[in-house]
């Protein structure tokens, strides 16, 4: 099966080619959507095959590189078009193709009747293709194709409704922000490549090669630089501070796209990349600290914004940013496995949430459309009580919400708890650990709060819709609800593959299958930590205690949400009017966009204007034209010497003679 790994990205690419070139002619939505979905499903099937084969091998053999052809070779630099199979990429392939297939399926229903249906599916397939390339690439360059490819596709899909200026802007913003990250990625790549090459004659960008020579990677120093550069790349792709602002704006795209971006593809790239390079990161405590702090800060920061948003998708968007913060917190604590675990569970419940919100929006859109209302179908203030009309959506949504809130038994609990524990117990950051844990726990509480706020505002209470609209509100069709159900099931159960040791033992020896599965990927890091004497805290009591605390915090969040939005819905308004400035700041996302505009965008434009009108035209071109003008002016003056009078001519001759003779006589 391994030999056919190249089929995984190939299927969606075929989908792209077919739909891209002939989609317009095909016209039939079922065919277009079918081709696109089948392509991803095909990849999923291959991915499953690969996973099973992988599982059938012993741990140390779970590594395979398939080289298709040499892509770039120049001097010592060589990049193959090659695919890497190991537990990490297999897992990612599963997530991407699995969740991706569901989203494709869902899209057939959701995008029904949209203009440019074929275009949408082309992009969607392209997106999947890029992401698959990203997670299966055997070297940084192939990864970078996917890395930039997802950026491109986000641009295309966010800007899908291109006639809307805001959509175009958001797409551009996403791409540019990503490019800032890519800048970091490239610099990191160059530094690592050059350092390893010139000092150790290891000229490679290949992950396998690099891992083989991981011992040569120094501790700290240049490694920190490399890590931070790559991390800049990760912040761009995974929407971390300071490059997170594109993600909420990305809600301009169709909802399934948001699901795809937020759940299955794109934003997870940064987490994947750092995990892939765990043997580099483990060598730089400084970089780990930065990653952890940025992650924690993002988790908290985005969560605060999430509490004040009214747009259903925006809440989810900030929730994504926040959850990604968790993942980075885990990575920064050296718990790469935990980060990826949360990535996976997050993919399940976040996809479910987004698709669920899509289902809501879809229904709301139709309802509002029926009464010709121009009200925003995404604004939760227009919803309420939807559980009665949309039971499946509600139920699945609720399960996913419980999962994200971290209620024990559901997927989110296992992953989040692991992260919080690692934040507390990791051997890297010393006293900072407690701060990291505290921030994480607070964010967890906030998460529970705003997610349940969302659920309560949307599905509970009385509807705020008009009679007529309410009448037109319907549950979504099966193509939409089926993926919801699948994802809800995964959200509920997916966490059980990674039961923490303490819990597992308490429950009668449940194994932590996930940890075992990931071992080969993290082998070097584990080994390194062991030899370097980096041991985390081991205390079952503490682990139980923290687990309890985090569950408690989550429950508090839910309780507060219930109190504020179900029991006494007047309190939020009162709160808002009591602290208007705070609310406005939170509502306006702490004015980060404005600050960026002020700091970067506007100065750049002004500088561009100045350089063009002020410098290029006036100075540079001025000098060029000035030289010409001086010559012409000089010419205009000099021609007046030619007076036309014989006397003057004779004078000039005599003068010439006198000067010449004088020069020779008197020197």
């Amino acid at each position: 099966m391994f030999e056919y790994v190249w089929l995984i990205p190939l299927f969606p690419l075929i989908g792209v080619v077919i739909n891209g070139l002939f989609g317009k002619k095909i016209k039939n939505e079922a065919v277009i959507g079918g081709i696109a979905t089948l392509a991803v499903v095909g990849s999923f099937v291959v991915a499953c095959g690969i996973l099973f084969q992988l599982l059938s091998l012993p741990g140390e053999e779970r590594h395979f590189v398939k080289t298709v052809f040499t892509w770039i070779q120049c001097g010592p630099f060589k990049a193959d078009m090659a695919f890497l199979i190991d537990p990490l990429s297999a897992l990612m392939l599963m997530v991407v193709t699995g969740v991706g297939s569901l989203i494709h399926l869902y899209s057939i229903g959701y995008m029904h009747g949209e203009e440019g249906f074929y275009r949408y599916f082309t992009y969607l397939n392209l997106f999947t293709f890029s992401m698959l390339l990203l997670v299966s690439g055997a070297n940084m360059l192939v990864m970078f194709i996917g890395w930039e490819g997802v950026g491109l596709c986000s641009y295309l899909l966010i800007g899908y409704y291109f006639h809307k200026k805001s959509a175009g802007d958001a797409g551009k913003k996403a791409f540019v922000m990503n490019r800032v990250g890519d800048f970091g990625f490239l610099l990191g790549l160059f530094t690592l490549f050059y350092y390893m090459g010139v000092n150790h004659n290891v000229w490679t960008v290949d992950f396998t090669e690099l891992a083989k020579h991981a011992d040569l990677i120094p501790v700290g120093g240049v490694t920190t630089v490399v890590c931070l550069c790559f991390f800049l790349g990760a912040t761009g792709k995974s929407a971390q501070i300071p490059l997170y602002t594109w993600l909420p704006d990305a809600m301009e795209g169709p909802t399934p796209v948001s699901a795809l971006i937020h759940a299955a593809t794109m934003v997870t790239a940064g987490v994947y990349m750092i995990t892939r390079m765990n043997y580099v990161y483990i060598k730089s405590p400084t970089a780990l600290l930065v990653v952890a702090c940025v992650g924690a800060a993002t988790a908290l920061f985005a969560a605060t914004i999430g509490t004040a948003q009214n747009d259903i998708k925006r809440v989810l968007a900030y929730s994504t940013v926040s959850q990604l913060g968790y993942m980075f917190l885990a990575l920064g604590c050296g718990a790469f496995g935990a980060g990826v675990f949360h990535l996976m569970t997050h993919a399940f419940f976040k996809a479910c949430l987004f698709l669920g919100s899509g289902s809501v929006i879809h229904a709301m859109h139709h309802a509002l459309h029926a009464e010709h209302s121009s009200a925003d179908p995404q604004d939760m203030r227009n919803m309420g009580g939807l559980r009665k009309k949309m039971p499946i959506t509600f139920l699945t949504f609720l399960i996913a919400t419980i999962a994200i809130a971290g209620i024990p038994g559901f997927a989110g609990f296992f992953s989040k708890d692991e992260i919080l524990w690692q934040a507390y117990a990791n051997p890297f950051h010393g006293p900072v650990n407690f701060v990291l844990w505290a921030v994480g726990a607070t964010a967890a509480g906030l998460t529970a709060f705003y997610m349940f706020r969302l659920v309560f505002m949307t599905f509970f209470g009385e509807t705020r819709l008009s009679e007529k609209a309410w009448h037109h509100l319907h549950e979504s069709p099966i193509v939409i609800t089926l993926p919801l159900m699948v994802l809800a099931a995964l959200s509920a159960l997916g966490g059980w593959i990674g039961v923490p040791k303490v819990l597992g033992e308490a429950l009668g020896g449940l194994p932590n299958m996930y940890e075992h599965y990931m071992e080969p990927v993290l082998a070097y890091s584990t080994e390194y930590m062991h030899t370097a004497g980096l041991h985390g805290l081991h205390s079952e009591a503490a682990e139980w205690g923290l687990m309890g605390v985090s569950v408690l915090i989550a429950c508090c969040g839910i309780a507060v949400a219930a109190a504020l939005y179900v029991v006494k819905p007047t309190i939020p308004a009162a709160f808002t009017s009591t602290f208007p400035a705070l609310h406005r700041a939170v509502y306006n996302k702490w004015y980060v966009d404005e600050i960026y505009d002020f700091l970067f965008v506007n100065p750049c434009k002004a500088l561009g204007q100045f350089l063009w009108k002020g410098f290029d035209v006036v100075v540079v071109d001025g000098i060029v034209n000035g030289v010409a003008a001086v010559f012409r002016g000089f010419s205009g003056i000099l021609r007046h010497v030619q007076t036309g009078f014989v006397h003057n001519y004779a004078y000039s001759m005599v003068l010439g003679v006198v000067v010449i003779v004088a020069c020779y006589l008197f020197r």
Partner: protein
Amino acid sequence: MSQLPLLSILTFLPLIGAILLLFMPKNSHGAIRGLALAVSAVTFVASIPLITGFNPTGGFQFVENVPWIAAGPFQMSYHLGMDGISLWLIILTTFIMPIAILSTWTAVEEKVKEYMICLLLLEVGMIGSFVALDLFLFYIYWEVMLIPMYFIIGIWGGKNRIYAAVKFFIYTMVGSLLMLVALIALYFKAGAGDFSILRFYELNLDPVTQTWMFLAFALAFAIKVPMFPLHTWLPDAHTEAPTAGSVILAAVLLKMGTYGYVRFAIPLFPDAQAKFMPLIATLSVIGIVYASLVAMVQQDVKKLVAYSSVAHLGFVMMGIFALNQQGVAGGMLQMLNHGVSTGALFLIVGFIYERRHTRMISDFGGLAKQMPIFATIFMIVTFSSIGLPGTNGFVGEFLVLLGAFESSMRPWAIIATSGVILSAVYMLWMFQRVMFGELSNPKNQNLKDLNAREIAIMIPLVVLIFVMGVYPRPFLDTMAPSIDNMIAQAKKKQAVAMNVPAGMINPHAGIPGAPPITMPAPAGEAAPAAQAAPAVPTAANPHAGIPGAPPIEAPAAAPENK
């Protein structure tokens, strides 16, 4: 080696075409266009054997060497040849010509005959410049190119065409005349013989001479490239030129400058290259950032693309001056990429200009709705220009930056890398304003999508964009030996220059001027060894290391190790 004088045939086929055109009736436009297209197409086909018959050894091939002028001290030869460096540039030229001719099939309605003659003559000059191995011959072709381009801009150009044409001509002329002086001086330094570049490669010039000659050559080439701050003729020329003119200007003419550096300025004056590297690197980086910023605020699409050219060529220059495999190969590849992508961009601008007779960004908006095919192609080209992996732009840019990073240009390379952000900003912003948004301007309501001819023009370019992006090996592999030769040669001379004083101080150290001590490839050697001998490059093994670049130190390693 008796074979067809392929390079001569290539060079003069267009000339024959131009002469044939002279005898065509003035008003049979269709026939004139057809003939011109046929001639350029035949030229392209005739250039294919260059690829198939190419032997990637690094030496010159398809060589023709016939004594031409022999008078007094001078011997000029009709000396043609081609290696991996020029191969693809020749192909690019012959490839882009039919496209350029097709592109103005309908746009140029007046003086068609003269127009086509100019285009074909231009091709003569361009191919000639790339194949000439005799510096004198090169100079002649170099200058000859100016004339048709001058007329193309001046006769078929836009409003401000006269200014642009004259500026183009005189600006280029100033530089090339100074180069002529240096060229003659070089010839006299070389002693009796011909003007063959191969002979000049063997010279060992003293650093002062090199400095001056390099400056003269570099100025001529820098104007052509164009490098900041000598770039202002380019936006004017591009904006005013008709589409085909812009396409050729961008795709081929600008490459003359960078090609000049690779073929002449650097291998001839390697010490000066080392000396001026910081200056060139600085100018390139300024060019990249500056042109990007200026491009960002342009209101005219064509001007924007023109400024983007300046930025792209800045990358090329960085790569070339990095003087290592990745850099130079990246630079060369980037030259081709720029030819394809920017050529395509100019074609695209031409398409909308033909339809709307305006190029102001503000006049457009929402075209994607009206012209979906156009939008798709435009987008692909835009992303190629931005350098998205998978398209051609990426490979070149990446290698350039990698190469620059490995050379002593590292600090500059870091700033240059920021160019990837800026290029995304200005290209996407332009694309968004032109293609996205509401189709608000009523004049745009009835725009027609691309017709078959226009699609036919774009398809080869789009295909190339992907082919070069996904499988650049054929290009890189054919170039590599020649580039290795060039670098080895330059580095050898640099090393000699460095060794001579040492030899004079300690006569026992070795014979002064002897080739540098060759070092076996330090495969798997420990770091200190590699650092201690900072890569004396050898002709035998240019892969050995990236010379001249101090390795990155890891100062913080010790404290953190504890």
